[in-house]
């Protein structure tokens, strides 16, 4: 476990992912804090903005150190390094300005914790601008030249868009998790219910994003090993894939425990200490597994971070993923889980349609709180389908991932699940009494959710036929 960076490049890779994805999480929480006028959420976000600004120091130093160390390597072109350096410095300057703005807002807020609305809005604007510059400064093209490959062999190659999406997407659940955990700790210490709900929602979103991350990872394996690319080892990828499978379980446990607590809180009006502790335990364990997964993922295509004492896997047939693959090729195992998958869809679509009927006004005599109970069935359906879907994918992943409808199916799963969180988060919807009209936003959301899940079913059924 060489998780402690032993080179500038390794340190740079680790710290430089935090500002971009971290800023998305902090901005999301900050906007929620501003809308709800929650002092604890606003102050926590201002502290995190300042922390991200401070992070610019190790990012700059490790970046400069990496440039010096790798300038002689044929893997890295000078033009690409110079372009990344210029945009990187611009992004770090923007990050520092946002951090200074956050410190000023904190200082102005004084002991009462209330900064002026204009000051807070300036920090929000600075954060959004910084995020834009950070995206422009992305340095993936420096080392991921395989993503620019134009060589396509019919029935052999997997589109390079999959690994491209994977290297972007995998940071969302990982960095997002670290920030969700930070918010959660503050929420528990401050005993702030809004922050607790916000952190639990962030855990659920990260768990949902874990699904497309895992799927794009499996596709990346095919894209990078068939046809083979020198320097990239299937055995190293399999070691990463095995850990990713455990991460998926960790995300599922924490995401489910978080959602159950959100659901229970709606009905009981209070949080259970035991459940909150359970979420914390799951989240910390998952963070540990995720860290090792990320480290193993970094070993796939970053020879510059490997150390001489590190022994890399060499057997491409070893590991739990390969064992599941070989088991699931048997119809005795595949068909039962396929039937579970169909039952899961019945639960998901039935729940989404029931909510749509109430929100559109066809079941007006029912309060939304009554319909809210049904959401549990839909969530269990999602759990059943993520597990059975993962098993079915491993049965013949190359064929599924190269099917034209598989990508849209996975994207629609993420959209359908994330948007459906509105039903658990909206106070206005929760307070909808029998006979009352739902807000227009809820009608749109319910429509999107039903269409997304209908699309998932259609895309899934069309696999192999287009």
């Amino acid at each position, binding site marked *: 476990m060489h998780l402690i960076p032993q080179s500038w490049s390794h340190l740079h890779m680790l710290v430089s992912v935090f500002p971009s994805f971290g800023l998305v999480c902090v901005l999301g929480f900050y906007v929620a804090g501003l809308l709800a006028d929650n002092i604890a959420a606003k102050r926590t976000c201002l502290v995190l903005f300042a922390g991200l600004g401070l992070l610019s120091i190790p990012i700059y130093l490790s970046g400069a150190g990496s440039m010096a160390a790798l300038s002689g390597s044929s893997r890295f072109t000078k033009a690409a390094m110079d372009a990344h350096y210029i945009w990187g410095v611009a992004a770090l300057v923007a990050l520092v300005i946002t951090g200074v703005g956050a410190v000023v807002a904190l200082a102005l807020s004084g002991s009462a914790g209330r900064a002026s609305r204009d000051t807070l809005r300036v920090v929000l604007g600075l954060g959004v601008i910084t995020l834009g510059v950070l995206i422009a400064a992305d340095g993936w093209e420096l080392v991921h030249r395989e993503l620019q490959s134009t060589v396509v062999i019919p029935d052999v190659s997997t589109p390079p868009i999959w690994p491209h999406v994977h290297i972007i997407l995998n940071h969302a659940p990982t960095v997002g998790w670290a920030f969700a955990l930070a918010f959660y700790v503050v929420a528990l210490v401050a005993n702030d219910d809004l922050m607790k709900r916000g952190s639990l929602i962030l855990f659920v979103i990260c768990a949902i994003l874990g699904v497309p991350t895992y799927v794009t990872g499996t596709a990346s394996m095919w894209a990078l090993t068939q046809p083979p690319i020198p320097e990239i080892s299937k055995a190293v990828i399999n070691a990463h894939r095995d850990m990713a499978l455990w991460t998926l379980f960790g995300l599922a446990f924490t995401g489910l425990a978080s959602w*159950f607590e959100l*659901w*229970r809180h709606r*009905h*009981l*009006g209070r949080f259970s200490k035991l459940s909150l502790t359970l979420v914390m335990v799951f989240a910390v364990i998952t963070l540990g597994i995720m860290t090792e997964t990320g480290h193993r993922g970094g070993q796939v295509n970053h020879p510059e971070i490997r150390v001489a004492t590190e022994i890399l896997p060499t057997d491409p047939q070893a590991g739990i993923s390969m064992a599941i693959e070989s088991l699931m090729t048997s*119809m*005795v*195992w595949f*068909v*039962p*889980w396929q*039937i*579970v998958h169909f*039952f899961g869809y019945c*639960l998901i679509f039935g729940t989404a349609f029931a909510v749509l009927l109430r929100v559109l006004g066809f079941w007006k005599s029912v*309060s939304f*709180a*009554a319909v809210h*109970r049904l959401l*549990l*069935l839909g969530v*269990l359906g999602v759990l*059943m389908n993520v597990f059975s879907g993962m098993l079915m994918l491993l049965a013949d992943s190359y064929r599924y991932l190269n099917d034209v409808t598989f990508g849209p199916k996975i994207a629609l799963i993420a959209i359908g699940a994330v948007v459906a969180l509105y039903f658990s988060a909206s106070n206005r919807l929760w307070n909808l009494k029998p006979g009352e009209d739902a807000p227009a936003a809820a009608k749109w959301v319910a429509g999107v959710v039903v269409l997304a899940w209908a699309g998932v079913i259609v895309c899934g059924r069309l696999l192999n036929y287009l």
Partner: protein
Amino acid sequence: MHGLEIVLMAIVTNACVLGLAFFTVYQFNKAVSQSGR
């Protein structure tokens, strides 16, 4: 024989998964029933 194996596995797997799911729903609904909503 292979067909019978598939049918038996399908029944056992789905009975376990759905049984667990509906037990969870029952327990959670019981827990929130006291709220009256």
